[in-house]
């Protein structure tokens, strides 16, 4: 096969989206689902082939260059896709998880009112997959930005899929606007990089790495600024503090969307950006430290917020923020491989959890955990799948999350304070502890929903039944991935020859190869697992038999519980600090200036003009006209003055 086939990776899903957009309502739901599923399957095949090709000579690089997209001055956007083991494995994950979720969607989106418009759903999902694969494989940062904004647009379209509900429409807009804030930071980061590299400016990732490796002083003064801008950009897509607020609201979208976009793939885009540009971050310990701190803080904060919601999917959304926080922590302490490992395992078990939740939502037609319970007997397959996802995310030994979480936390423990700009302050240890607590919180909030949804007595109405095979089969495949995903990168202390991911993708992630901590790493992992089990046991006693209230964890601290249950009132804070002042500036500042500034100045000067008697025309004596004339004269004088002074 030819290398040019790489273009079919984003190309196939894009083609499917175009076909579906043209067919519109003429496309039957079955055709739309097969088109999207088929193109995703095709992309998966190509991705696997690509991965195999890059692995044949460990670290081989395949690139397809379609020339310049556009260029002016030092800024050049090149249409180049490239695959190495890192990008190819990510592409396999994206296409694979995407295909499974599209399969699930075929069963999920079968409500009579959704059927006529289902082409729109599948077109957007296909467009999303294409954009995500473009983002993953782009070798040029402007091409990456195409995918970056593309996934944002698709996310907006899909959160607002049921757009007739104003709540959905508002959630979609919020997601887009918050993401746009991050996107603006990314644009500025690119501008900074082009400016700093001067005559050697390039937006091609490998070339930029080569230029900076040769002469790191090019970025001497601005490495921290660049790193912080990239971090800010990443917090938008990856829903980290401070730009995470869109993700919980995004859960109003269809569950397959939440699984694909808001759990497994799009939210990893921010982390992906930082992983790809690790060589920029590496030039600034302060920026690395900021990434680690933001990650740890997000992990802890979102873990706290996840304990309270009654909405099943909202808990999973906060959980995503928390897990991605751990991932950022890994990136910040220079453990790119561990972070990427966690990215992959998280994609498996979080997609699984979301789809299992989707199976429940599909059976019950609501997302409120207060009206669930006892589903284990009624939906055994779904329960089994959720349980696997639960064990994986909690980090039960042997499950995928156990290995990846342990790798991140150990890397944080092993990092040197000076490497993350902390001087002699033992910041790494502190961050590791924060991560440890966040992991315990994971056990707490996941146990809460596990017991409330699947155990005890059923508190809802009707008789929920197990979902159809088309929903269950993707769950089983993802269960296998969540269970065995850890094999990708077994730690050295296991004693088996392993570390496959470290060898394959590690060289493309920079940083020092992770030190293998042997006993310390094993103790950290097993200790965390034991502590988590204790939490689970406590939570089981707390929640299995509780049939009404779910807030009992906060009964000791009602004030704090209310605060956290309200999402920490962060939305209100942003509204008060950013949105309202800006709108106030627009309404009563700019708009009033516009409405009255010219007029008032006009009245004052009208008398002058009349006294001078220079303007006698009947038209010109009408008030507004004189105001305009004055406005013009003032504007003109202003410009002339500025021009003369400068």
């Amino acid at each position, binding site marked *: 096969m030819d290398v040019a086939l790489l273009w079919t990776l984003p190309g196939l899903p894009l083609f499917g989206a175009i076909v579906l957009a043209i067919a*519109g309502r003429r496309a039957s739901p079955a055709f739309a689902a097969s088109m999207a599923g088929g193109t995703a399957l095709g992309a998966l095949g190509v991705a696997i082939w690509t991965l195999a090709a890059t692995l044949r000579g460990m670290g081989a690089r395949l690139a397809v260059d379609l020339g*310049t*997209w*556009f*260029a*002016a*001055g*030092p*800024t050049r*956007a090149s249409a180049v896709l490239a695959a190495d083991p890192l990008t190819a494995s990510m592409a396999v994950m994206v296409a694979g998880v995407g295909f499974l979720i599209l399969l699930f969607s075929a069963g999920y989106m079968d409500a009579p009112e959704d059927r006529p418009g289902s082409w729109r759903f599948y077109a957007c999902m296909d467009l999303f997959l294409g954009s995500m694969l473009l983002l993953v494989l782009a070798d040029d940062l*402007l091409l990456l*930005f*195409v995918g970056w*904004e*593309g996934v944002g*647009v698709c996310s*907006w379209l899909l959160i607002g899929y049921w*757009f*007739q*509900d*104003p709540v959905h*429409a*508002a959630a*979609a*807009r919020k997601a887009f*606007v918050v993401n*746009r*804030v991050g*996107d*603006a*930071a990314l*644009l*500025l980061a690119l*501008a*900074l990089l*082009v*400016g700093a590299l001067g005559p050697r400016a390039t937006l091609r990732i490998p070339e930029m790495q080569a230029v900076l490796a040769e002469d790191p002083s090019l970025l001497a003064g601005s490495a921290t600024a660049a790193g912080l801008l990239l971090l800010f950009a990443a917090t938008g897509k990856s829903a980290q503090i401070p730009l995470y607020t869109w993700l919980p609201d995004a859960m109003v979208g269809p569950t397959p969307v939440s699984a694909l976009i808001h759990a497994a793939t799009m939210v990893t885009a921010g982390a992906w950006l930082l992983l790809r540009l690790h060589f920029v971050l590496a030039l600034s310990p302060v920026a690395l430290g900021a990434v680690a701190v933001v990650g740890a803080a997000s992990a802890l904060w979102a873990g706290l917020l996840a304990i309270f919601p009654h909405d099943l999917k909202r808990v999973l959304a906060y959980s995503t923020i928390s897990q991605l926080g751990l991932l950022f922590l890994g990136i910040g302490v220079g453990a790119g491989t561990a972070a990427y490992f966690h990215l992959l395992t998280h994609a498996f078990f979080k997609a699984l959890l979301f789809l299992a939740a989707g199976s429940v939502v599909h059976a019950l037609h609501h997302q409120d955990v207060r009206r669930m319970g006892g589903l284990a007997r009624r939906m055994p397959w779904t329960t089994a799948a959720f349980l696997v996802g639960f064990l994986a995310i909690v980090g039960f030994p042997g499950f995928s999350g156990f290995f990846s979480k342990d790798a991140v936390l150990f890397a944080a423990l092993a990092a040197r304070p000076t490497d993350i700009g902390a001087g002699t302050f033992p910041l790494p240890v502190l961050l590791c502890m924060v991560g440890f607590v966040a992991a315990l919180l994971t056990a707490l909030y996941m146990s809460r929903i596990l017991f409330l949804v699947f155990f005890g007595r059923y508190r809802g109405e009707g008789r929920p039944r197990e979902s159809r095979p088309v929903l269950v089969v993707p769950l089983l495949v993802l269960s296998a991935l969540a269970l065995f995903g850890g094999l990708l990168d077994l730690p050295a202390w296991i004693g088996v020859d392993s570390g496959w991911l470290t060898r394959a993708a590690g060289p493309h992630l920079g940083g020092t190869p992770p030190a293998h901590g042997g006993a310390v790493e094993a103790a950290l992992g097993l200790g965390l697992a034991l502590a988590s089990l204790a939490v689970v046991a406590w939570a089981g006693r707390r929640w299995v038999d509780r049939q009404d209230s779910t807030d009992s964890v906060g009964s000791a601290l009602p004030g704090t519980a209310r605060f956290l249950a309200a999402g920490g009132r962060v939305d209100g804070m942003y509204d008060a600090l950013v949105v309202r002042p800006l*709108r106030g*500036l*627009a*309404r009563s*500042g*700019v*708009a009033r200036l*516009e409405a009255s500034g*010219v007029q008032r100045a006009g009245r004052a000067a009208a008398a002058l003009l009349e006294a001078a008697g220079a303007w006698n025309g009947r*038209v010109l004596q009408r008030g*507004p*006209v004189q105001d*305009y*004339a004055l406005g*013009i004269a003032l*504007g*003109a004088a202003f*410009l*002339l003055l*500025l*021009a*003369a002074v*400068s």
Partner: protein
Amino acid sequence: MPVLTILVGLPALGALLVALLPKRLARPAALGASLATLGLALAAWARFDPTVPGAFALQDGPWPWIRDLGVSWALGLDGVGLVLVLVTAVLVPTALASDRTPGRAPAALLLLCESAVLGCFTALDLVLFYAFFEAMLLPVLLVLALWGGPGRLRAAVRVLLYTLAGSLPLLAAVAATWVHHRSATGVPSALLADLLATPVPTSWAPWLFAGFALAFAVKSAAVPLHGWLPDAYAEAPVGALVVLAGLLAKAGLFGFLRWALPLFPEAAIRAGPVLLALGALGVIYGGLMAWVQQDLKRVVAWTSVSHLALCLVGIGAGTPDALAGSAWLAAVHGLYVGALFLLVDLLEARSGRRGVDDFGGLGAMLPRFSFLLGLTVLAAIAVPGLAGFPGEILVIIGTWRVAPVAAVAGASGAVLGAVYLLRVLEKVCFGRPSETARVLVDLRPAPTLPLAVLGLLLVGLGVRPLVNVVTPATDRVAAALETARTVEAP
């Protein structure tokens, strides 16, 4: 064959034809003339070879016109002119096809205006340029004053006064430039090439630059000289509106690139911070204003102010990428702003309303309309893959090196753009249908065709932007500025 002369003359001939033909043939004739012009513009593009050395790949003349004054009929096309000519040739037929003003006069006037606009984008003689620059406004102004909305007179007078305030200094500066050339060489001429050969002394170049810049800033609605724009855009009938917003406002930006920057590079560099500041101010000011408007046309009008200001930022920065981005954005801005106005006008024509809150749920009621509106909005907020993106990103990256603060303002404009345009989309297309929305029916093929063409262009030019067409021209301007900067430095 003098392609450019025919190109400039054809719409005017069409206008004459429209005036003479019986009423029922007038509309088809006008459309035909504008389509023929489009064909000719495409032919000019086909013959355009950017690799030809020298500034202008296609050139007519110079042929002496007013011998005593040394004024010639000289037309030429460089890359920047070419993309603007193409946008003009595309927009005028769509405007004519969508216009609903009665009678043949508006159509004839719009064609006359097209001639002047094309002349303005191709003139290589300063006096000729001035004539076109002034002439292009009058037909639109007449359409506005005679067939506009209830506030048309007020709006028209405002446009006239603002324009005059810019025109008089421009006239003085043009005359002074001409006088300087004659006294320096003894031969009267206003040809661009001749004027470039006799640089104006630095002592009064700033004043001449200010004269040019003032007129161009008024035309491109730079805050605080934008006062003519919102009312005019709100009152103009849609044909005139598309021409006004899509084309005339560009003439100011074009004037900077073709005349003001090359003729007075030192002065332009010294005025750079002022242009950057005005542009940055305009991006934010226009964005905030667009956010709080209740009238859909005014939202689009302020969108236009904000985006034109971004172009001005790029011109103030003067780096190769910023200038190219500016020129590209100026061109495609015509397409998406034109499309937005056409879409709003369709709603107004069907429902008699155009308030942001008057609709809702059109996504379900009018899926085709909503699709086109969504696509245009995404292009307007510079989503990559659509036409607006290359211009915006080039301006921001190119400006950062000179003035990071202005680049930050430009990037903030991108965020604001999402805020105010998605607000429109959400209110108009999402949610539950309002009473007004319920009675609307979706687009039929006739009004869809021009919009579909614009939509296809927005996608096509996003995937395959013609930035490489404009760069030879903008690079020359950037090089002139760079030379002036290095001369000044020691």
